[in-house]
C-alpha cells in the first residue's frame, strides 16, 4: 500500500527539524478559535493561579486557596498538558534534555515568573489570554497591554545587556545536562513520547466518556493542550521574541509570526462574536461578545503589561513560553513556572485589590471596541495597528535603528 519510507518522511517532516514560526502561528490561531467555540479562548495565567491556589490549599493556607481542584479547572489542565505536549514533541524530535542553568539564571527564572504573576493579575491578562487572544477579541485593554509589554521588555532587555557587562558571573558557573536526546542510545526517548501520547488519549477518553458536559469540555482541554504544546515546541513560537527581537537582534521573524497569528484569530473570533457562536445557547449574545474583554482599559493594563514585560524578558519565556520550554527540560523555566504559581495567588489577594482601589474606574474599564466603533470600525482599527507593527519591525530589521545587537 505504501512504502515504509513514506511514513518515515511524514515523521521527519514533523519532528526532524523545527517548523517556521509562522506555521506555528497559524495552527495555534486555528486551535485558539476552536477553544473559543468549545468554551473560552486561549489563556494561561488563570491556570497558573489555580495551580498556585491548590498548592496553598494543600499547605493549609486557606486564605490563598481555592475550592476548584486542578482536575476541574480547564485552564490549569490546559497549561499542564501544554507542558506534556512540549515534552512529547521534544522526545519525538530528540530535543529533550534536562538542562540545569547556573544558579544565577535559576534565580532570574523564579523572579521573572513572580513578576509575570504580578503583571498578569494586575493587568488582567498575559501575552496569550490578554494580548494574543485579547486583540483578536477586539478588546481595548489588550492594545494597552501590548504597549505595556513593549515598555517592560525594552527596560528588561537593557537590564540584561547591563548585567552581561557588569555582572557576567550571574550567567556563568556550574551547569548540568541530563538525559540529553542527542547522541547514541536515545531510542527510549521516542518510545516514551509515543507512550505519553497514548496515555493522554486515554485521559481524554475518560473525561469525554462522562455524561457531564463540563467534564467533556475539560477533556477537550486535555487533548488540545497536548496538540498546542507539540506545535509550540516544534515551531518555537514565542511572544517574548515578538516584543524583544526588534530591540535585540532586529529580526522580524517572531513579530511577523505573531502578527499573522493574531490576524487569523481575529477573523475567527469576529465571526464567533458577531454571530454568537458556541456554548450551545447557554449564554447571551452579549456574554459571548464580551469574552476575553477584561476590566483593564487602559492604565491597569499598561501597568500590568509593563511588569509582565519585565518578567517575561528576565525569565526568557512568557506564561505559555515558560510552559513549552519547561516541557523541553529547561530548569530555569521550571523555576519561572514555580515563581508564577506561587506569586499569582499572593498578588490576587494582596496587590490587585490595592491597584484596583487607587485607579479611577475610567482607567480600568471593559472596553469592547465594537461598542464605540462598530464591528467594521473595530476590525479596521486592529488591522491598521497590525499593519503599523508589521511596517515598524520590517523597517527596523532593515535599518537596525532600534536593535542593540
Amino acid at each position: 500500500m505504501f512504502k515504509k519510507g513514506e511514513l518515515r518522511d511524514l515523521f521527519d517532516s514533523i519532528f526532524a527539524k523545527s517548523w517556521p514560526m509562522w506555521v506555528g502561528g497559524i495552527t495555534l490561531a486555528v486551535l485558539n478559535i476552536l477553544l473559543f467555540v468549545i468554551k473560552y479562548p486561549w489563556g494561561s495565567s488563570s491556570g497558573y493561579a489555580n495551580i498556585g491556589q491548590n498548592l496553598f490549599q494543600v499547605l493549609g493556607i486557606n486564605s490563598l486557596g481555592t475550592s476548584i481542584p486542578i482536575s476541574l479547572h480547564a485552564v490549569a489542565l490546559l497549561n499542564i498538558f501544554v507542558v506534556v505536549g512540549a515534552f512529547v514533541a521534544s522526545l519525538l524530535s530528540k530535543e529533550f534534555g534536562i538542562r540545569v542553568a547556573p544558579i544565577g539564571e535559576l534565580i532570574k527564572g523564579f523572579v521573572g515568573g513572580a513578576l509575570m504573576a504580578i503583571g498578569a493579575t494586575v493587568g488582567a491578562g498575559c501575552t496569550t489570554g490578554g494580548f494574543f487572544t485579547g486583540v483578536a477579541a477586539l478588546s481595548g485593554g489588550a492594545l494597552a497591554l501590548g504597549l505595556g509589554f513593549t515598555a517592560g521588555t525594552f527596560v528588561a532587555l537593557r537590564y540584561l545587556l547591563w548585567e552581561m557587562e557588569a555582572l557576567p558571573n550571574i550567567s556563568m558557573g556550574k551547569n548540568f545536562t541530563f538525559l540529553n536526546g542527542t547522541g547514541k542510545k536515545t531510542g527510549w526517548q521516542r518510545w516514551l513520547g509515543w507512550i505519553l501520547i497514548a496515555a493522554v488519549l486515554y485521559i481524554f477518553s475518560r473525561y469525554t466518556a462522562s455524561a457531564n458536559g463540563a467534564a467533556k469540555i475539560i477533556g477537550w482541554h486535555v487533548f488540545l493542550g497536548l496538540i498546542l504544546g507539540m506545535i509550540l515546541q516544534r515551531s518555537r513560537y514565542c511572544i517574548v521574541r515578538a516584543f524583544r527581537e526588534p530591540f535585540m537582534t532586529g529580526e522580524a521573524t517572531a513579530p511577523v509570526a505573531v502578527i499573522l497569528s493574531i490576524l487569523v484569530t481575529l477573523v475567527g473570533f469576529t465571526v464567533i462574536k458577531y454571530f454568537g457562536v458556541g456554548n450551545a445557547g447557554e449564554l447571551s449574545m452579549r456574554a459571548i461578545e464580551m469574552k476575553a474583554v477584561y476590566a483593564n482599559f487602559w492604565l491597569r493594563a499598561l501597568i500590568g503589561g509593563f511588569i509582565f514585560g519585565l518578567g517575561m524578558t528576565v525569565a526568557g519565556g512568557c506564561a505559555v513560553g515558560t510552559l513549552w520550554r519547561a516541557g523541553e527540560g529547561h530548569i530555569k523555566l521550571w523555576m519561572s513556572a514555580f515563581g508564577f504559581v506561587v506569586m499569582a495567588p499572593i498578588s490576587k489577594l494582596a496587590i490587585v485589590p490595592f491597584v484596583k482601589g487607587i485607579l479611577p474606574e475610567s482607567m480600568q474599564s471593559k472596553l469592547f471596541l465594537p461598542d464605540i466603533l462598530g464591528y467594521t470600525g473595530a476590525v479596521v482599527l486592529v488591522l491598521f495597528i497590525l499593519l503599523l507593527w508589521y511596517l515598524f519591525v520590517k523597517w527596523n530589521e532593515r535599518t537596525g535603528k532600534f536593535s542593540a545587537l
Partner: protein
Amino acid sequence: MQVDQTLDCKGLSCPMPIIKLSKALKSMNSGEVLEMLGTDPGSKTDVPAWCEKTGNIFLEQAEDNGAFKFYIKKK
C-alpha cells in the same frame, strides 16, 4: 579548524546564548573563529540566523556528547 576562543553557553536558554555570543565576538578580531558550546535546541536556528543578520560567517555545526558546537568566523 583553528579555534581562537571558546564560549560556553551550556545550560543557558534564550536569549542568553545570543547576548553572550554578541559580546564575545566584540572582543575578537576580524577573521578569528569562535567555538560556541550550547544545549538549547533553539540555538540551532538562532545562531545561524543571527550570523546571517550581522554578516558574521557561520562555518559549521556539530554535536558532541549532548552539546551543540557552533563555529563562527568574525566578519
